């Protein structure tokens, strides 16, 4: 690797030392452990959710009812010492129900802003596909802008701010599936899955999990900010960037995909990969991080061709196929020593 072509993206801020990385990884692990202690489901899923939180991205949980989606959201909120709200999306839900309204205060004679449920650190948007597109759009505006405008006045969403939207993959009657452009705004799509036998029996005994509200926060807003800053300093080698680009390029040419990955998708993956690497105690990103994040970050952004849809293809499987086809950067070639 010639240093001239290597654009050191962490120049100026300085690269993270391996000791620092271990230190931050311990903090992130504590965060994930705290949230995970109240949640059914794998540590991997919780870690990914924490990574999304650090990335200031949003989560789309696609799962059957009753596996603990709301619990995960509450646990995440509690572990960073924040507030959480839950909105059940229905066809008659209006945008104002989300964002809040100005209410006339008779005692003061003024209109007071009554903030809606989006003004929380973690917002659970349950069954987001049941609401009318207009309401979905209002939520997506908050996700993107982190701002709410009511009657011409802007209100800033709190920090940290994480929206955990859920979709039920089983029922589609009377739903408004999210358009591709809006799916693209979710950083990750995760699935909790059913708990294993032991965990499920523990729940039945009511001995398994503590209440999320009783959790002690593992980080405050400043600590979270520190972790985010550290994540930005994680090194990404040019070969890894090229690898991400090559995989995205392959999806754009894939004959069974109508829509490949957008530049926003590749940037999101690189961003998430930094934080994942940090969460794993590494000061740099390796190709495995890319492979591990490909399904959560990318699968929901791919659009199949009609033929592939009819053929029952699964975007996650196609993505796995593309990953098998595109060679990962080989140490010999990258080092060339």
């Amino acid at each position, binding site marked *: *690797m*010639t240093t*001239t*072509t*290597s654009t*050191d993206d*962490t120049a100026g801020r300085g*690269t*993270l030392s391996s000791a620092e990385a271990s230190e931050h990884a311990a903090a992130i692990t504590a965060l994930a452990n705290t949230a995970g202690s109240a949640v059914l489901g794998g540590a991997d899923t919780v870690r990914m959710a924490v990574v999304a939180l650090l990335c200031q991205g949003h989560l789309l949980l696609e799962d059957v009812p009753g596996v603990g989606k709301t619990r995960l959201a509450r646990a995440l909120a509690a572990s960073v010492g924040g507030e959480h709200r839950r909105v059940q999306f229905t066809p008659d839900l209006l945008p104002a129900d989300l964002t809040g309204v100005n209410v006339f205060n008779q005692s003061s004679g003024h209109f007071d802003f009554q903030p809606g449920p989006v003004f929380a650190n973690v917002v659970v948007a349950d069954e987001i596909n049941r609401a009318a597109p207009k309401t979905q759009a209002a939520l997506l505006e908050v996700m993107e802008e982190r701002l709410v405008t009511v009657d011409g006045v802007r209100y800033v969403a709190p920090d940290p701010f994480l929206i955990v939207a859920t979709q039920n993959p089983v029922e589609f009657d009377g739903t408004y599936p999210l358009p591709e452009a809006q799916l693209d705004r979710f950083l990750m799509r995760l699935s909790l899955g059913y708990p294993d036998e032991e965990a499920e029996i523990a729940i039945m005994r009511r001995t398994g999990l503590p209440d999320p509200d009783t959790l002690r926060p593992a980080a405050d807003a400043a600590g979270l900010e520190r972790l985010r800053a550290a994540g930005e300093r994680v*090194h990404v*080698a*040019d*070969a*890894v960037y*090229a*690898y991400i*680009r*090559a995989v995205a390029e*392959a999806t754009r040419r894939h004959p069974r995909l109508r829509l490949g990955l957008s530049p926003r998708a590749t940037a999101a993956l690189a961003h998430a990969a930094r934080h994942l690497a940090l969460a794993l105690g*590494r*000061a*740099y*990103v*390796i*190709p*495995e991080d890319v*492979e591990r994040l490909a399904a959560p970050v990318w699968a929901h952004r791919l659009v199949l061709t009609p033929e592939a849809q009819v053929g029952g293809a699964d975007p996650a499987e196609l993505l796995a196929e593309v990953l*098998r*086809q*595109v*060679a*990962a*950067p*080989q*140490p*010999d*070639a*990258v*080092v*060339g*020593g």
Partner: protein
Amino acid sequence: MDTLTLRRSADLVWAGDRGRSRALLRAGAGAAAAACAAGAVAAAPGYASPLGAALALVPWAPAAVVLTLLLLRRLSHSAALLTGAAAALAGTLLLALAAPGTRGDPLADVLAALPNAGARILGSVPPLPVMVDTLLLPALATWLGGAVAAVAWSTGRPLTALLPGVLLLTGGTALSASASAALWAAALLAASAGLLLAVSSAAAVPGTVAAPGFSAEAAPARTGRGGGAGRWALRAGACVAVCAIAATAAPAVFATWQARPLDPRAGLRPHAVPEAAPNPLGYLSVWAAHPDTPLLEVESNRANVLRWVALADFTGTTWLPESRYRTTGRVLPAPDPAPPHATRQEVGITLTGLPGPWLPVVGAPRSLDAPGAAFDAASGTAVLARDGAEGLAYTVSGDVAQWRAGTLTGRDVPRSAAFDQYRRLPEDVPEEIIGIAAQASADGEPYDHAVRLARYLRTGYTFDPRAPSGHGLADLRRLLVEPGRQGGGGTSEQFASAFAVLARAAGLPSRVVVGFGPGGRGEDGTATVTTGDAIAWGEVYFSGVGWVPFDVTPGGREEGGDPEEPAAVGAQDSGLHSVGRPDGADWAPAADAAARQGGDPARVWLAPGAAAAGAAGAVLLVLLLRTLRSRRRLAAGRPPVETVLGAWRELRENLRLAGTGGVSGSTVTTVIRAAAGADPKQGGMRRLRSLHRCVNDLAFGPTRSVSKERAGRAAAEVREYVRDLRAGQPRTRRWSWWLDPRPLFWREW
């Protein structure tokens, strides 16, 4: 571009527009074409005109490669091959124009040759005539090989691209049966293979695609991996050294190598040419009684004995000719072994009254200018495979042996089963005949036995031109036994038959040959051969010499004008059988010692010994290279970067050798996981933890460095792991672990 390889990208082959990759692509295509042309080079000596055949066959290889590569830009593989096949068929018309067949119309020639191309080759006597019938099959095979090689090369499979060349070389060698040409062709193929592999390992294998903007990184990586100019100089030096050793040692080794390529024609039983008479021996008695009827006119500058028919199959009542005739071109195959001290003689012959389909030839015939002739290489007999022998004029040249003293002393006769047909006798051979043979072969060498038999016949009996025809066992018994030991009379018909039967009874491979003496020469140099010049003689086969004629007919040339005595011309001139004369003063075995040196047993073992030594050397070389490389990779004291990379390569190589290790292009973790899965000790991924971390640090970390201690730990992990991995293999795999040469050629794992 090693970094990013799209493994599915046959359709991206031509996307690269950089000049360098185009040059490499051309070099590779040229090498593939040269590899396929090797078959044509090997086949060319099998034709009467090797140069003409080479000119007609070699261009098919580059044409096929170039055309197929052009077609592949637009078409799929199968479509390109099919379209190319149409072009190849058009090319056969050009071939028919350049080397016409017998029909005079190129299209008719091609249409007639297409379904019969293989049969024409197998049914012709080598060397093959240069005509579309015999060229079509190798030409189309070369085309097909070139097209397949082009497709393989374009999809980044250089070894597959070489396969057609190897197959064509094998076929061409079988066709020409010429070991020396095969050596040159093999050298051409080897050079092409080297070029092809060099080009493909120059990282421009079609089918790999660089990530845009990433090539600046890959290029120094490649040269850096090779170790810079010093490594290249070392490689070049090694190549030159190997070539020099090969160039000096190969001729000496191969000169002693008697191996002959397998001739597919040997397995084919040719159709017999219809014969007017089963054998011409019966003519001899009649002709002896009426010696003045002209049979043929002979034009030559020397008096030569002509051979007519060789008879090898004795039924008890008659001798039958060998009849494995094949149609032939003008040039005839060289005899094996070559006649000793031979000179080339050329005669023009006009048949004026000769019966039967056989054509008289001189010596061991090498060329025969008689359209429609067929030839039996085993007996050296030519026949006319059509009617109209009467009045036929043709020229024939042949190698006439010069029999010198000592040529035959010490020679043995072949004992192999291939010669059993020349020793076969009916079961009812009279006791007396066997007794005579047993006396003659009581002691001494085979040559002595033959000489004693010939002397016995020549001195013990008399020539009787009035003797009745007949040469079966009953006639021989009457001649040899009944009249008593002396005084019986007969013609050369009986004496030649008697000699051959006695020789067979004595265990010598023998046969009867009918031919003609030189005849009376006129003033214009033309000799008229009459019925009185016809003569039969016996021949015995000696190893390393071939068929040796023995004059067995009694009667003196002193008697003057004896029509049956061709030896009157003198042995040195006629080339006939005076070597068998036991009484010639020039027969003193003066050169015995020299003759005995021919079968030096030490030389027989030289070629197999050299081959065995070469094989052992190759095995040792592989062992040495493998172990040295492995040791160097894991050695302490090298820069930590090299240690880690060496350990990494060593791990991947050994995993691939063990049949695991994931597909190429796997990530580091995948490989380590596969290693843990293959670990006989089930140590898990922790066994290779240092290596895992070091490799990632080096490749993707911000500092791209590791400490010496960590590198050493990684190397130690790999050393220990590889030892356990090998120990866990099946026994055969374990033993061949360090002898497997494949890792030396692996570029990726």
